[in-house]
């Protein structure tokens, strides 16, 4: 289908974009990479009167490290995150997750900030942002404010970003000594939406019966937003990682998850896949570094 008619303005600065949002209110939508917005417009799922294209605001793109913070500009394309040596070194979770996002041609256009702000519960970046305890930087008429990832995702496609604000960057603490990351997801075909996915990070001590600290298990596609499995995390951090403890965590995980069934998978199947992803992640996190 062709999208409904809309007007188009290419913003020349973040302030210009904010002024257009203030002027047009709900009639205006922000256009960044457009890999979700243009698809939904083609399907006529919404009818904005105006698209405010922020794609030329290169000051909102780029990846930098300053002190112990990795900053990814909102307009950084997925492919730039995927191929960034800074990301591979300081936030390997993101480098592991990137290849799971759709397909190359879409990763060439789609933006990091766009995916975070859209907050699709099946998307990879929101789960990673939560797992890495990132901070979201929002720009409004009154200036910048910072929101912790734990407070940002509010529900399906719903975040703490106000409609007159721009998400300008995500800030991540760089990976610390002894910390490890692991991302994996299950999809029917390469690039499809995940049936279930898991962004995991932890401090790992010891070899055979390892102990985990600062464990964060964040699932995607299992609820209305990226979900931290706090009960399973608590069990897994209570002592050495024995088979009995992992079995107990498996039960805790199944008890705390309450997924929706989708067109091909029952809620029970999704729980089973989540538990499988958790076991794989634990095994990967505890594997001796090469």
């Amino acid at each position: 289908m062709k999208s409904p008619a809309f007007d188009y303005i290419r913003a020349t600065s973040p302030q210009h974009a904010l002024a257009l949002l203030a002027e047009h209110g709900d009639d205006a939508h922000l256009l960044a990479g457009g890999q979700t917005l243009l698809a939904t417009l083609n399907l006529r799922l919404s009818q904005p009167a105006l698209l405010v294209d922020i794609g030329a605001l290169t000051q909102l793109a780029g990846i930098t490290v300053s002190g112990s913070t990795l900053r990814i500009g909102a307009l950084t394309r997925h492919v730039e995150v995927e191929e960034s040596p800074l990301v591979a070194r300081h936030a390997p979770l993101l480098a592991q997750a990137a290849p799971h996002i759709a397909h190359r041609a879409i990763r060439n256009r789609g933006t990091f900030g766009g995916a975070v702000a859209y907050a699709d519960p099946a998307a990879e970046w929101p789960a990673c942002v939560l797992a890495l305890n990132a901070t979201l930087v929002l720009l409004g008429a009154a200036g910048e404010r910072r929101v912790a990832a734990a407070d940002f995702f509010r529900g399906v496609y719903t975040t703490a970003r106000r409609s007159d604000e721009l998400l300008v960057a995500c800030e991540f603490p760089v990976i610390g000594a002894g910390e490890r990351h692991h991302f994996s997801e299950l999809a029917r075909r390469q690039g499809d939406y995940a049936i279930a996915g898991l962004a995991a990070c932890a401090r790992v001590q010891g070899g055979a019966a390892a102990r985990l600290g600062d464990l964060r298990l964040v699932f995607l596609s299992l609820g209305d937003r990226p979900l931290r499995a706090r009960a399973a995390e608590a069990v897994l951090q209570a002592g050495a990682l024995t088979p009995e403890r992992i079995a107990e965590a498996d039960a805790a995980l199944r008890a705390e998850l309450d997924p929706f069934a989708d067109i091909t998978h029952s809620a029970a199947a999704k729980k089973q896949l989540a538990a499988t992803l958790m076991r794989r992640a634990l095994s990967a996190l505890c594997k001796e570094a090469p």
Partner: protein
Amino acid sequence: MNTPLDTPRTRVQVEVNGSTVVRDVECRKHLVDFLREDCGLKGSHLGCEHGVCGACTVRLDGQAVRGCLVLAAQARGGRVETVETATPGPRLKALQDAFVEHNALQCGYCTPGMLMAALDLVERRPDADREQVRVWISGNYCRCTGYHAIVDAVCTVLERQRAGTLGEEVQA
């Protein structure tokens, strides 16, 4: 919602296959419709129209994109390459020949998008193995071939490129 009753238009200047094109188009017009309807270039095909099938794959500023998920207005000031570029480089020509050689097309609908995606791979991942080829073109659907012949064709070009015989065969 104040949906415009008219269809707002905008002036677009784009470099298409090396030539500068200036047109007044509807703001909502996609790059692939712009190429087909306003530039007369029917090589890029329109399949699903929501970013799933890859038939509309073209290159914008050197990168493969979905022609149905980019507005012509967004491409303003950009450089677009399609399968019908007047002077195909040795890689595109070699891919086209390899597709014929390996029967890597039947109805041909996916072929232009497949070629542009494969061109991107051959340029950016010269060391790609068979599995990486499959992953790279996973965003391009083909309903005829079952993909094996397409993967064969792309792998052949990668091998020729690695052997340094790509340019010679094109000139021969």
